[in-house]
């Protein structure tokens, strides 16, 4: 058997594969969003001066960073029912990915908050902002800009980690690919199709991240250091550049 382009292209444009890729992307996006929210709360815990608040946050990060995400998933999907808590495949998948991702986001967000100029908080409080308002209006937006590159790493990693959900028969990209292989016995072509879809997702995210970095980079002297990704792509495929982007700060 040799590489068969027909199979490759048939499955590349197969609606089941495309749908599975979309599902995978959405699951990763929702999980990453939840991971960020939980991670933010954990980061506040990690920063707290009260042991009562800090200890649980530290324990959480210790557990979820120290154990394999696959075991976390199996604990939730097969373990919880043993305690009488029934979870669907989707619930188990999203919750385990979120909980796992949150441990990493917590450390990232804590680091970003710690690296902010303490003068910012002082200035905000001096004009009467409460601690909550200071966080919401001043510190969080500044931290968001710092968090973005690491957030991007986490999200692309999250998209790849979704493949673990194939273990509990969740119909994500890898699982659907495996099923297709069992029909065609063409692993090389089909795993290649899956790889292309993962790459597409990662590329889509790069464009979004680029846009986000510009949006949150407002007011930062060092914001537009990165060229937009599409300018690289354009150069790669030798498009003439019809207009030059005005870089706004």
């Amino acid at each position, binding site marked *: 058997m040799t590489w068969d382009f027909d199979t490759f292209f048939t499955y590349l444009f197969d609606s089941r594969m495309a749908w599975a890729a979309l599902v995978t992307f959405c699951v990763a996006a929702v999980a990453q969003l939840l991971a960020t929210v939980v991670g933010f709360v954990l980061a506040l815990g990690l920063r707290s001066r009260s042991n009562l608040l800090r200890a649980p946050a530290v324990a959480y990060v210790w557990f979820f960073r120290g154990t394999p995400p696959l075991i976390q998933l199996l604990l939730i999907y097969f373990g919880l029912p043993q305690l009488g808590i029934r979870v669907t495949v989707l619930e188990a998948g999203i919750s385990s990915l979120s909980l796992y991702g949150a441990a990493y986001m917590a450390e990232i967000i804590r680091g970003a908050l710690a690296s902010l*100029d303490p*003068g*910012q908080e*002082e*200035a*905000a*409080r*001096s*004009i*009467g*902002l*409460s*601690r909550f*308002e200071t966080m919401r*209006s*001043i510190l969080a*937006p*500044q931290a968001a*800009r710092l968090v973005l590159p690491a957030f991007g790493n986490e999200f692309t990693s999250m998209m790849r980690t979704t493949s673990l959900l194939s273990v509990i028969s969740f119909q994500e990209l890898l699982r659907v690919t495996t099923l297709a292989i069992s029909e065609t016995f063409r692993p090389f072509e089909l795993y290649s199709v899956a790889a292309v879809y993962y790459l597409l997702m990662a590329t889509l995210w790069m464009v979004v991240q680029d846009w986000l970095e510009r949006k*949150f980079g*407002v*007011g*930062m*002297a060092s914001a537009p250091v990165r060229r937009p990704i599409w300018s690289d792509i354009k150069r790669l495929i030798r498009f003439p550049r019809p207009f030059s982007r005005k870089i706004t*700060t």
Partner: protein
Amino acid sequence: MTIAAAEKSPILEVHGVVKRLGGVDILKGINFTVAEGSVVAIIGASGSGKSTLLRCLNMLIVPDDGEIVWKGQRVGWVQKGSTWVRQKEKELLGYRTQVGMVFQSFNLFPQMTALENIIEAPMTVLGRKRSEIEEEAHALLRKVRLSHRVKAYPHQMSGGEQQRVAIARALAMKPKAMLFDEVTSALDPELKGEVLTVMRELAAEGMTMILVSHEMGFVRHVADEVLFMHQGIVKERGNPSDVLVNPASAELQAFLQRVTD
């Protein structure tokens, strides 16, 4: 101004304020009063506790001992029955808006334009409408001579411009007193003047001001009283034309020699 100011009752009284940081007594019992509309300058060597004192004055940090009395009311404490209990951070916000503060390093919010920096607190703290407060913000920017910088971001402005926006930001809360912590120290000599001019005008309008400054010329002309701090206490105080010309202590003599060199 001195005579008129002295006749008024004090707007701010500081009684035996002590602050300990990292196990060291940074402030060891500070006493002074500030009459409404007067200008008090605080001078002293680096590390003598000037910034710590200013932070205590608007409760960014809470003194360990002593009291601060604002318009006859003890700050940071409320009387419940016969006992005094500390106020929570939330209850201090009202006081803090009445005492504006300007910092050596400007501390403008980098993600906001000059205008947005100014309207942030009136909008979030006082809940005022953007359209309504924007007009006042424009007036404040005119006052600090920055009408042309409304939409500039901090990193696009010179240090002198940033510091004047910072003053406007503090004034937007309509404070009754202003604290200035070495606000020209980070500026190039040619930019100091524009900030000092704004401060001089504020003093002339009758704003109560407490400022830490090493601009001896400015202090001599604008301040009603000078406090010389040394190792956490007020070592000398008085009229600038007395204290700065005839320092009594060896420490002040040495200090003046260093800053005028």
